[in-house]
């Protein structure tokens, strides 16, 4: 009985410990930030489809869509692979046109700018 009790307490302690292990980046670790321009994004209702497509990208930790700026901010886990082709594909499947991609590397203070395969569209008046 005493042995069973010890095993039970040990298992519960282990489960509690596992529960407190963060599934996201630990404090102090910076997420890799990607700023993606998305053309054709005019309304919040439209943005839902874009959100659902982008959130399927492997390694994506957080997504923030800024409609007024016409960009989507993608936050990847540290060390995760950032595949621009996948990002482009997801945006197109959602029915929009991907634009310039800017990748911020937290390992160094410099920024790396990468152009997408699409030609940037001409800005029109609002």
């Amino acid at each position, binding site marked *: 009985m005493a042995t069973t009790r010890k095993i039970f307490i040990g298992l519960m302690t282990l489960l509690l410990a596992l529960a407190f292990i963060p599934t996201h980046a630990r404090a102090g670790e910076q997420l890799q930030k990607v700023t993606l*321009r998305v*053309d*054709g*994004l*005019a*309304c*919040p*209702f*439209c*943005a*839902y*489809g874009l*959100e*659902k*497509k982008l959130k*399927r990208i492997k390694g994506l930790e957080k997504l923030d*869509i*800024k*409609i*007024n700026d*016409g960009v989507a901010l993608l936050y990847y886990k540290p060390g995760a692979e950032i595949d621009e082709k996948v990002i482009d594909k997801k945006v*197109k*499947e*959602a*029915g*929009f*046109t991907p634009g310039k991609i800017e990748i911020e590397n937290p390992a160094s203070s410099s920024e790396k700018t990468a152009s997408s395969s699409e030609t940037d*569209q*001409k*800005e*029109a008046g*609002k």
Partner: protein
Amino acid sequence: MKQARWNSIIANITFSLILLAASAVFAHEPLFGLGPHTVGQYVWEVESTMERGQEGWANEFDLIYGLSPNIALTTTLPYQFSRENESAGLGAVTLRGKYRFYRRDFRNGSDAFAFHAGIKLPGGKRAFANYGNSTDYFFALYFGRESRTRYAFADVRYLVRGSTRDLNRGNVWNFDAAYGIRPWRMEYLQPDLVLLLEALGEVSNRNTFGGRQDANSGGSGFSLAPGFFLSYRNVMLKGGVKFRVFQNLNGSQKKDRTEFLLAVDIHMPPFK
């Protein structure tokens, strides 16, 4: 009695679908017309709309599939609710396809042109009196521009009505335009309101029966329809009222009455 029970069950399911419907709308489109927008690739969507048209209250149930970002296929099942001395029942099924052949995306907006074609099949448990039990075809060309603050739509539609026995119903031309504004430029995950005003013109040819024109058919009309779209993330409430402003009907015909439309759309996530 058994039939009445089935009708009641169908009506209840339809009302439930109104609340659970998924939206076909990736963007705001005219309420009483249509627009150039299509659904995303691999997307299945469902839309349910309650409206009071010329034949009374009805519910239209749309099932849409996105073959590609520019091609959408739609099946429409109309259900007419009972009205004075007439029982409720399913109407004729419509199948249609839309091809967005031009799209220009720019920052915070887009322009699009689309071609639309469809067929209304004969039959259904109860054919709407307005359509008759015939096979009809329609073709349409749409233009749409949307941005953070303004919307503009225009379309021309042509309905080719089939014949039923000796009755050959007149074809119909529709010419529509719409203009909308977004008073406040809200961000994602904030309530969003768009106000739209539609102008709808219609010219219909006379019917012929047994080779002779029916003097009490055909004519022209013009309507205005203010509407609104209120959305939050993936849920949209939209509604509108269509007023007949001008009407020139041949012979002796019942005047068109005001139409109402109210819909709740829920945008569902794509399969992949």
